[in-house]
């Protein structure tokens, strides 16, 4: 039992990372109906921004994080304004092709700029683990999990309690009516992409110290985030949070009890089963997702 609890608690860190990345995916999907397949490469670019700002320019870590997150926001807005805008209203196949083209482009450019040698960035929180009864909790994991919950809550309040949040929801609900109400669809989409990519970037910054930071760092991790987003329901905030943690815990249990090399396969099976039985996920609205 202790082992089980320890595995679940150890999953807090990665669960939070998947949740943050899934949130980023869902924010974009909610307004633009596009799954950003390029998010892994874009998020990795944000983590590499941190490396450049911290190791390259010698900025303090806090400033490096803030700059990198802002850079991620700019990258997201640029993606929307420069590329996604041109394929708006086209069949899904077209936007899938576009985001995969961008995935290749960004990942390749990251390789050109930063090279493929592994780099290291500082951990956000360090210090001894906290003992809670028989299990020990890593401070950094706790911080990441808390951050994921806080970000979800903040986004929820933003969507429900602010005028801008209302505008975003209006665009997600019905773009044409929203534009008749004087809401700038362009602005809302740009904002969604900026926040979405910035959040994925935050996930990459948090995961980078735990793995080696290379341009392809997020290739595998992206699948866990996709699984989290799909499990919770594409476009859903709380779904991303719950889905991200569920995937984190599941893969941790697989690694602990079965084999560390089977995580991807089990997560793939999870994606297929969820999409087959409940394509809208746990929290999503029943949209037209099947044939």
């Amino acid at each position, binding site marked *: 039992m202790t082992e089980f609890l320890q595995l679940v608690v150890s999953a807090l860190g990665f669960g939070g990372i998947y949740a943050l990345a899934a949130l980023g995916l869902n924010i974009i999907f909610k307004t633009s109906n596009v799954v950003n397949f390029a998010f892994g490469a874009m998020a990795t670019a944000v983590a590499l921004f941190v490396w450049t700002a911290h190791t390259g320019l010698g900025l303090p870590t806090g400033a490096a994080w803030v700059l990198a997150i802002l850079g991620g926001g700019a990258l997201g807005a640029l993606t929307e304004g420069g590329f996604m805008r041109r394929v708006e209203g*086209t069949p899904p196949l077209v936007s899938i092709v*576009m985001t995969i*083209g961008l995935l*290749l482009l960004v990942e390749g450019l990251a390789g050109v700029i930063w090279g493929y040698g592994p780099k290291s960035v500082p951990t956000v929180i360090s210090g001894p683990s906290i003992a809670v009864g028989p299990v020990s909790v890593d401070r950094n994991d706790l911080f990441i999990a808390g951050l994921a919950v806080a970000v979800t809550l903040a986004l929820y309040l933003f969507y429900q309690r602010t005028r801008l949040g209302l505008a975003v929801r209006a665009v997600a609900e019905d773009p044409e009516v929203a534009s008749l109400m004087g809401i700038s669809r362009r602005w809302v989409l740009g904002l969604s992409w900026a926040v979405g990519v910035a959040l994925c970037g935050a996930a990459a910054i948090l995961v980078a110290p735990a793995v080696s930071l290379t341009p392809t760092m997020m290739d595998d991790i992206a699948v866990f985030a996709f699984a989290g987003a799909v499990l919770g329901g594409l476009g859903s905030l709380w779904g991303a949070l719950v889905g991200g943690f569920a995937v984190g815990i599941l893969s941790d249990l697989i690694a602990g009890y079965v084999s560390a090399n*089977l995580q991807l*396969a089990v997560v793939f099976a999870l994606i297929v*089963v969820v999409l087959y039985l409940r*394509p809208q996920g746990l929290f999503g609205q029943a949209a037209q997702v099947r044939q």
Partner: protein
Amino acid sequence: MSRLPGRVAALRSRGRRDLAAAARSALRVPVLVTLVVLVVALVFPRFQGWNTTVMGLATEALTYGLVTMSLNLLMGYGGQVSVGQGGFLAVGAYTAAIVATHFGGLPFIVVLLLAGLVTAAVGLLLGLPAGRLRGHYLAVATLGFGLAVPEIALNGGSLTGGYTGLIMPPQNLGPVTLNNPVPVYYLALAVLVVSAAAIRGVLTSPTGRRFMAVRDSQDTAPAMGINVGRTKVVLFTLSAFFCGLAGYVFALNNSIVEYSSFDFSLSLFFFAAVIVGGLGSMWGSLIGAALLVVIQQEAVSLGGFSEAILGVAVVIALLLVPGGLAALPRRTRAAIAGPRILRRPAGQTGTGPGGLPGQPPAPSSPAGASREG
């Protein structure tokens, strides 16, 4: 009144003839071009001095060409996305190596067909759930598939050889042992030509027209009596079959099958090759695959540029050259003939009868918006 059914039948059969004729003429690549390419492919080893490195690369181009064709069948003609085609290639290659290792005496054709059939079975299994999904959901599912297959192979114990992989034993083709790049090249060429002919045959058949009907509109296809779910499962199974055949050639050409050959970027590269070559064009697939081999070959000197170039090519193909490289001659002709042809309303270029191959679901046209929700 009594003559009505007869009239309907007559109309229907005429419609069928029209459709069949349209599909045939659309698929008719100038026979001369095909012959010339084939002759060049047959004699070219003789003229570059049987260089084994070049032969290996040429075989790789043929293998990738078949994979890209199988993916194009799925995406360009069936309108279904797969971001994990490398997974099917891996299943085919592993099947070939496993069968050839454990049953050394089997004739090559049996091993080849088994690689295709086992992969087709996997395609069927994936198609059953995937056939119910559309758009982004399908892409996410196939992405997971592409990543999961190499990992499952890694955990396959002695069956798949784990980290070290499997050695593909040399195959015998009658008196010829396929342990040298030259016979392997000719085998790859034969497999590609037969598969391409078979894919063409499928596309001109009612099954192929069902694929295109599902591609053009998943909402009106059922109204024409098409079972969309079943059509998609058939599509996935067929695509996987041809990809599995390519897996056999891949195993033979690389002589070792290891999980690291099938990393995620390979699936992305196939995806890019289809788009750059041209959705819905078999020739485009071959050109895209050949470019892919060239870029991969230069990857050491190009570094990240190889991936970035592919990304840029995909974006350019999507935004500026719908139809990819295969559509370039037609677009050039149109540009020379005068701007009038190019200024045709975008909605008219996309749909021909049965969805003309070579004129893909015109990505940036507003008409495309109505297709596939």
